[in-house]
């Protein structure tokens, strides 16, 4: 900070020096306020994390010890918060039952139940709303017609701070016409804030568009943490393994809360037959999809790179630019374009196939055809990358090797298999592992092209025949398969280990390559 300000001696420096401490203190106070707010909201761990981060930031920028960290801090913080922390957090969620039915924390779930209330029949008054200038007034009457009451007037933006007094209606008092139901609905938010004190001292609350009544809580909290239904005396106690309030019979109250479930999500992957069958089918398809993509993409890419390196060929630059196009078009657009082109009835591809061969395959309805389509599209998207990579690698092969083989009278195929391929396969292999890893997690292609459909017909949780692991996880977490974040996080954790294995494999291949390169350089 101070290093910033010594640039121009004179006025600006003084001004900046003067502002440094007030600004620092203001920033620190703002961060502490935020930390306090987070802590007050009952999220102690989050508050602690935020506090640590704030302290680290102030330490980096105010002390001289962490000088290099002034430059590093934003980048490191960004990676720590949005890459490293989500990884750990996902692993943690994988050990809980966090899902749409167990979304809240224990405190918020019990608060929700304890806030529930029912209107007391004996005190129920029906009401009409009357407008007088800018103010509103309620007229209350009981079902038997006895004891009509009128409340104090209140503004239409009344904040409900103090209860309104209700007094018996005087015969001479005219209230004007009552509001229509539509106007009552328009004023509903104000009415919900209104509390009325009766002459008897009872307090009435809003209990609907037609009635005010005394509200009694449905649940009563007991000292041991269980809650009892006021009406029936039935008791529900929190169950720490399922994350629900349960009675003796095992009936559950909604909403549940998030609890740790140990390895339950993991054991489902192996032990639950309903889940295991589609899960393994999806896993196999994921590997097959990524593997076949790498094979096809490499075959097409290497062939093109070799051809485009052939000096006898003219217009190579034009060819190369046109072949590079699939890589330049944004993926989400080209995938959706293919979704339209492959449409069974009015897609261009079926129009051509129909004209040539008289067939109109149902690309999206048949599992196998959908898989073929995914591979075709993925090869279209992926080959330019390999082509460009190989072009660079082939250029670095010494020309005298080909001259020697030409003297020996070798054919182009011999050249390719005896010289080109052996020389490019080693530097290429770590990159092919990366391509495999990328397609292993190629969520965008599946999500935009088929969404994993068609689904398996016989599964409890919907699963798609051409879902890959990552799109299946997305579906479990965010779509029609129950919003089971815990299970999705557990699958993600398994995938972390697969990605880590692929990364290590890639690094080992790459370091071998470097060693070989430096060895031959001597």
């Amino acid at each position, binding site marked *: 900070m101070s290093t910033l300000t010594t640039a121009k001696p004179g006025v600006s420096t003084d001004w900046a020096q003067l502002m440094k401490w007030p600004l620092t203190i203001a920033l620190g106070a703002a961060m502490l306020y935020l930390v306090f707010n987070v802590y007050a909201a009952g999220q102690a761990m989050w508050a602690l994390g935020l506090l640590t981060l704030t302290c680290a930031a102030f330490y980096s920028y105010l002390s001289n010890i962490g000088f290099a960290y002034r430059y590093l801090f934003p980048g490191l913080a960004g990676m720590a918060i949005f890459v490293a922390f989500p990884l750990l957090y996902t692993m943690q969620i994988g050990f809980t039952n966090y899902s749409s039915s167990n979304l809240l924390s224990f405190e918020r779930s019990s608060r929700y139940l304890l806030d529930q209330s029912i209107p007391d029949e004996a005190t129920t008054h029906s009401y009409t709303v009357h407008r007088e200038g800018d103010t509103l007034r309620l007229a209350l009457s009981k079902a038997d017609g006895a004891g009509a009451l009128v409340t104090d007037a209140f503004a239409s933006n009344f904040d409900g701070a103090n209860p309104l007094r209700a007094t018996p209606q005087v015969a001479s008092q005219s209230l004007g016409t009552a509001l229509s139901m539509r106007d009552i609905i328009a004023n509903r938010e104000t009415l919900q804030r209104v509390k009325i004190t009766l002459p008897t001292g009872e307090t009435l609350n809003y209990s609907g568009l037609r009635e005010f009544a005394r509200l009694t809580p449905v649940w009563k909290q007991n000292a041991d943490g269980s809650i009892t239904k006021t009406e029936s005396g039935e008791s529900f106690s929190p169950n720490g393994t399922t994350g629900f309030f349960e009675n003796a019979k095992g009936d559950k109250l909604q909403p549940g809360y998030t609890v740790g479930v140990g390895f339950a999500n993991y054991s489902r992957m192996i032990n639950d037959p309903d889940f295991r069958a589609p899960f393994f089918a999806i896993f196999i398809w994921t590997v097959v999809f990524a593997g076949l993509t790498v094979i096809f993409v490499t075959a097409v890419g290497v062939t093109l790179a070799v051809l485009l390196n052939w000096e*006898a*060929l003219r217009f190579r630059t034009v060819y190369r630019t046109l072949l*590079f196009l699939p890589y*330049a078009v944004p993926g989400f657009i080209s995938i959706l*374009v293919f979704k339209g082109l492959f449409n069974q009835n*009015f897609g261009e591809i079926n129009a051509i196939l129909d004209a040539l061969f008289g067939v109109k395959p149902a690309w999206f309805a048949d599992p196998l055809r959908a898989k073929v389509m995914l591979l075709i599209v993925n090869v279209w998207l992926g080959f330019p990358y390999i082509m460009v*990579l190989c072009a660079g690698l082939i250029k670095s092969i010494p020309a005298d090797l080909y001259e020697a083989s030409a003297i020996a009278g070798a054919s182009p195929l011999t050249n390719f298999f005896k010289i080109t391929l052996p020389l490019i396969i080693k530097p290429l292999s770590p990159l092919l592992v990366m391509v495999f890893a*990328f397609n292993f997690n190629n969520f965008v292609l599946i999500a935009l092209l088929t969404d994993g459909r068609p689904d398996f017909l016989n599964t409890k949780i919907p699963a798609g025949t051409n879902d890959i692991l990552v799109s299946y996880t997305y579906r479990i977490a965010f779509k029609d398969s129950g919003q089971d974040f815990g299970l999705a996080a557990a699958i993600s954790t398994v995938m972390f280990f697969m990605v880590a294995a692929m990364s290590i494999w890639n690094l080992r291949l790459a370091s071998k390559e470097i060693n070989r390169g430096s060895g031959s350089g001597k």
Partner: protein
Amino acid sequence: MAIVTGKKNRWRVWAAHAFLIALIAITIFPLLAVISISLRPGNFSTGSLIPSEISFEHWKLALGIGYMGADGKWVAPPFPVLLWLWNSIKIASISAILILAISTTAAYAFARLKFRFKAPILNGMLLLQMFPAVLTLVAIYAIFETIGNHIPWLGIESHGGVILAYLGGIATHVWTIKGYFETIPTEIEENAKVDGATHWQAFYRVLLPMAIPILMVVFVLAFIGTIIEYPVASILLREEPNLTLAVGSKYFLQDQKYLWGDFAAAAVLSGLPITLVFLFAQRWIVSGLTAGGVKG
């Protein structure tokens, strides 16, 4: 290559040309088809690549202008394409600037400054980058839900939140910039320091102006990387006016509401600028490809 060419070679050249032209035809067919479809009237028409009847109805809708249909009914644009494009450009520009700022400073520290755990930190960053964000969507969703409870403009359904989420993906950019910094001789900065410049001034006034080419490349890479990002944006943004183009485009092609022609126009409109930027930056991107960046 000094190789004698014979008759055999000549037909090989012709065969290679034929093969390449056939492959290029397959490769660019989808791109030409989508342009042709955007100009055909109606959402279900098939026909030749050169449309027999040109209609700009889909283009009008893509540009947010309605038109009077043949049956006398007013056709309103189905989706706010221009708004989505604006959202995308806004998010991508701000993210790219911030990504550039934090990766440049980090790269400077790695290239020039001495500090403990330098190699482990850099390797750790590169290793972390191997785990794609799509694997941690559940955690990212939970994190932004919590942030949104306290700071609404950084939570779910906010563009601030999406931008914040993109700030983690900097390791490859740090690596690229660091490599470039290392090609610049340190003497220039040291001279500046001898003349009384501080670290920050040596960095900001001496090193950065010399590194402008690589900064532009990284900006373009970060811009393209965020404008085409789908998974994170799709969980953080759900409501129609908030969507980015990458998230919104798929709603054109739903089974119950299939707007093929309208999609084609929107796709050309939004895809063309990004493609041109990419082709323009191709030279530098290609040289960065070997560093292991796979585009989505």
